């Protein structure tokens, strides 16, 4: 790895990451938006969350994993239950950490027998 190579990567990766972050803010923050666009934006956040969460917990190592040893999926069932009932972010995270840790340890114990 030459120094020039590393710095080219850092600077240009930074640039191509920054520009898509910047343009929507500059274009939209002070524009008046059409009604259909505002209506559409209303649905985007929940869809982004659904898309990020589902692809994180159902797809592991580029494969659909619906089995019981997908601890991401099993832990998330618990976190969903807690999140739904309590609507509490700290409790959701705490229950997630606990469940994931427990299942990870359990899997390790089962495998070692």
């Amino acid at each position: 790895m030459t120094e020039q190579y590393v710095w080219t990567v850092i600077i240009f990766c930074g640039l191509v990451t920054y520009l898509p972050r910047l343009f929507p803010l500059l274009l939209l923050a002070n524009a008046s938006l059409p009604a259909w666009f505002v209506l559409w934006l209303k649905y985007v956040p929940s869809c982004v969350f659904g898309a990020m969460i589902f692809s994180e917990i159902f797809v592991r190592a580029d494969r659909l994993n619906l089995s019981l040893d997908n601890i991401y999926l099993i832990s998330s069932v618990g976190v969903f239950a807690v999140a739904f009932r309590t609507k509490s972010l700290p409790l959701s995270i705490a229950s997630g950490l606990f469940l994931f840790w427990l299942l990870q340890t359990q899997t390790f114990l089962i495998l070692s027998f």
Partner: protein
Amino acid sequence: MNVFSTRKILKTAWPICLGYIPLGFACGVFAQKAGLGIVETLSMCVVLYAGSGQFISIAMMMQSASALSIILTVFIVNLRHFLFSSILSEYLRGKSAWFLAAFAHETTDESFAVNLTSFERAGWTPEDAIRVNAAAHLTWTLSNAAGFFCAGLVLIDVRLAGYALTAMFIGLWSFYLSNRRLLAAGIGAGVLAVVFSLFVGYKLHIVLAAVLTSALFAFSGACGRERRYD
């Protein structure tokens, strides 16, 4: 900034930091093992500031990929921030171009998610948001530095750290789920994202699924209302 608002910022920022400390640490360890220097590692945190973008670019540099292919890959992987910035723009009306330019640099999956749900409640200002972002960015950078210097000394559970952020997303998502249409849209986008992820790489499945499903729901919602008016 008084003590009260500092508390407000920390109260909102801690879930991000909880995930960023171990993941940033892991990223710093990775950079050190890849042969980057501390200045390069930290410059990456300051200039690029994107978890998956940093991991991917370091991994590709280790494989001696061409600079152009790394830049293109990182561009596509981080293109989803375009969507995040579009959504947050609604809450940044009337802000100066300088403020927007600074705010834009801090967009990550996590800072977007936390700020969005905070903005939707009353009393959350763009200034609060940019402070939360700065706290997250600082945490990420310092954790990278710690990882760089402690490489090989401390073992951390990266999977567990990553899952802390997934649990955070689930917690944030649940704020929307009292509305049935939003819930249905979210689940629909989730299923579609899973299907897409098997065909398209570079995290594009998230943007594709979210844009398509939200458009479908927004459009059918408009038609539904018209029918009721008839």
